[in-house]
């Protein structure tokens, strides 16, 4: 990299009250490179991104864009200055048409057309309301819009999260093409495999500082993780707990599902969840897993089929019914489960208020004790415990799990619990799931990252088109195998579900 960097950030600092989010972050992006920005949750990655894109203003340090010192007061100024970003949740306005979404951002729609064609969106009616399109398409449109605005720096923040493999590949192709045109991309992802396959260099942040700039090519994963965590860890791929493989098959069933169907989304799904196992669900986006979890957690009534707990049929009309039956949910979106403005204690003990009469006095001391015990067990970083929204995403997810540990459960439903969470916390969460299973509970785990099935689960069900198309033991659940089955391609190794 001998060319002058197009973006040069140095000594960037940002504090929120007493909390120091960035102390001295630096970042240098050359023309024609895909540059990864990495760091565990709380490392200051998202603060850096927000300062770069004008959503926040830095307290110190300089941003040189094309050799000129810049500071952006709003995303609009950043856009005009040449930094355009695409986020995990697309920045498209739901009530505007696709065309108007281009217009509102000041981007010529016709410039987006070539990218639409590359993303297989050319038959899309530009008059369609953005809110009527599925998330995956919105993200591709958002990407097309960003590319069409011809930015100096394209910033991609977790854009492949819950994107199906083929769409992710299309996005990568666009990124590579853009790079080959001599443009620069800042790429943020929690998936190491993606980063090593697409990025030229990586800047690693820890505790608000830049701790290194490295080559993220395959084989360096351990180094990267060590740099991110600031301590030596073992490789990512081995199971966090002892691989005492198969659970005894005669273990009691904690839950049984028979012929569960929801419209065309979920069709005749049957399986049993044994005591003491972590059962994985592997599927691409939108294959019925969402509906399955909704039915099991009492968020939605199935059109047909039954759920059995300890061989007795149960029907949930409300999530409270499922909780009473010992089935609890950890959703992907933490904000669905937490009261963001309330304390960690209140969030942890929330389910218990139902056990107390409406006018009875809450025992805050007992609450406190249980909350502290549960959060300590999960190593929740409770520096900001008075308001859950101030915790990092990973810690918020731990609060959700702590809640259920404190109130007790038999079946834990985890719907993509590690979405957008750093590797270190991910590991902790999976270790925890294994520990709970070892304690006799059952866990049903859907994860959008197929590689994690083998790490966390005992066996896995593969869903495709609303049906269970196969079951594999964890020992054989490698990514390639699962991916094939999840695409509905009949595997030669997997045992088809009966």
């Amino acid at each position: 990299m001998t060319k002058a960097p197009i973006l040069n950030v140095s000594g960037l600092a940002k504090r929120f009250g007493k909390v120091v989010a960035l102390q001295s972050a630096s970042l240098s992006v050359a023309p024609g490179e895909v540059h990864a920005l990495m760091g565990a949750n709380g490392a200051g990655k998202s603060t850096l991104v927000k300062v770069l894109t004008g959503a926040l203003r830095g307290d110190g340090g300089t941003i040189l864009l094309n050799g000129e010192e810049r500071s952006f007061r709003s995303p609009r100024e950043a856009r005009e200055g040449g930094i355009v970003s695409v986020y995990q949740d697309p920045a498209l306005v739901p009530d505007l048409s696709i065309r108007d979404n281009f217009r509102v951002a000041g981007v010529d729609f016709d410039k987006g057309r070539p990218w639409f064609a590359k993303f297989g969106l050319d038959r899309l009616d530009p008059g369609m309301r953005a809110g009527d399109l599925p998330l995956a398409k919105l993200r591709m449109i958002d990407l097309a819009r960003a590319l069409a605005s011809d930015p100096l720096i394209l910033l991609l923040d977790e854009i492949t999260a819950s994107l199906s493999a083929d769409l992710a590949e299309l996005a990568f192709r666009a990124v590579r093409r853009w790079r080959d045109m001599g443009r620069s991309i800042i790429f943020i992802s929690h998936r190491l495999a993606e980063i090593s396959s697409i990025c030229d260099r990586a800047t690693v942040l820890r505790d608000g500082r830049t701790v290194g700039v490295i080559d993220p090519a395959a084989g360096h994963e351990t180094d990267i993780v060590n740099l991110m965590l600031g301590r030596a860890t073992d490789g990512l791929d081995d199971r966090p707990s002892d691989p005492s493989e198969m659970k005894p098959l005669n273990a009691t069933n904690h839950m049984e599902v028979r012929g569960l169907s929801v419209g065309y989304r979920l069709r005749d799904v049957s399986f049993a969840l044994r005591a003491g196992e972590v059962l994985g669900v592997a599927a691409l986006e939108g294959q019925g897993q969402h509906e399955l979890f909704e039915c099991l957690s009492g968020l939605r009534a199935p059109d047909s089929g039954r759920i059995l707990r300890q061989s007795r049929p149960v029907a949930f009309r409300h999530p409270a019914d499922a909780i009473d039956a010992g089935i609890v949910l950890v959703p992907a979106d933490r904000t669905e489960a937490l009261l963001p403005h309330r304390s960690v204690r209140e969030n942890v003990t929330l389910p218990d208020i139902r056990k107390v009469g409406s006018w009875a006095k809450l025992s805050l001391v007992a609450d406190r004790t249980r909350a502290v015990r549960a959060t300590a067990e999960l190593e929740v970083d409770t520096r900001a415990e008075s308001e859950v929204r101030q915790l990092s995403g990973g810690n918020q997810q731990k609060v959700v799990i702590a809640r259920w540990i404190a109130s007790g459960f038999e079946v834990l439903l985890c719907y993509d619990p590690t979405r957008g969470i750093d590797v270190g916390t991910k590991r902790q969460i999976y270790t925890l799931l294994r520990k709970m299973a070892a304690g006799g509970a059952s866990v049903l785990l859907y994860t959008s990252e197929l590689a994690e099935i083998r790490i966390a689960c005992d066996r896995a069900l593969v869903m495709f088109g609303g049906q269970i198309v196969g079951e594999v033991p964890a020992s054989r659940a490698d990514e390639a195998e699962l991916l094939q089955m999840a695409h509905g391609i009949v595997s030669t190794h997997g045992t088809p579900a009966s």
Partner: protein
Amino acid sequence: MSPIPNKHRDMLSTDRQVVAVPRNQAILAVVLRYRTAPLLPAVLVALFGLAALIHPSFGAFDVQSLALVALPLALAAVAQTAVVIGGGIDLSVGSLMAVSNVLAARSMQGASLSETCLLAVAVVVVGTACGALNGLIIIASGVPDVVVTLTTGFIWGGVALLILNQPGGGAPEEFVALGAGQLWPWIPNALLLLLAVVFFIWLPISRTRLFLGIYAVGSDRTAAFRSGVDVVRSVAASYAIGGLFCALGGLFLVMTTGIGSPLGSAHYTLSSIAAIVLGGVSLTGGRGQVFGPVLGAYILSFIPAILIFFEIDPNYGEVIQGGLIVGIVMAAGSLKLKGRSIQ
């Protein structure tokens, strides 16, 4: 990553359009999208029919008086539409109309027609500025729009009384005739004025990128912000546009009543909300057009007349308006819940 054969590609996407939606759900989707708006012309025609049926002498005079009553309300509704599309609400609409109304009536009394026109422009500028002030206070203070506009509503109400402490004032006859007259029988000037305002003021404004930003901010503030929309400017602009139409409403009140009245406009606040709800503007922002609220204003103005025809106390009109708001908002809410199961 293994390449995916083409035939699987379609199955991977969770396209809603790919799957045939049952007919009743399709209807529900249309209702959710456009709400009550497609029904309104039919309702209005039915009301005319009903009026003609029970009141055989119903004619040009009644149309004229309906248009006179509906004109200021329609302006209030248009003002409220601009604000609500931007995701806010303006509870000072009635008082701001009162301020413009008394300001105009007091200053125009005895003025020449050309002076009157200049004064009218000045009143519109003042109204727009007051609206913008609403928006700026909301943004700068972070206090909810309901609280801010309720408060400024009291302030404007007091200011109106300071300008004119009792109904009075006036305007040149030609100016009054502009609104109160009738160009042709059956075609009241009040209707023509309203159409002129909608076509020559609202529509051009609503097609600017600024107004697109207002729609965007009302629909999803975060997405709009990230798309590069200037949220502060958009919110301020939505209230300023609201203020502009309030001022026009106050001016038209001078035309339709011939005087200024400091207390006569308070009810326009609630009625403007009733009209936009009836007109299919989403109270949560981001959705709505101008024609629904205008038709809604006409329908609401018709209700007291119909009540009189039926020899019912016209004061029930307020009860009906309030009931309509609650009813329609509740229906929209329950439809939305049903709609969620489609998605």
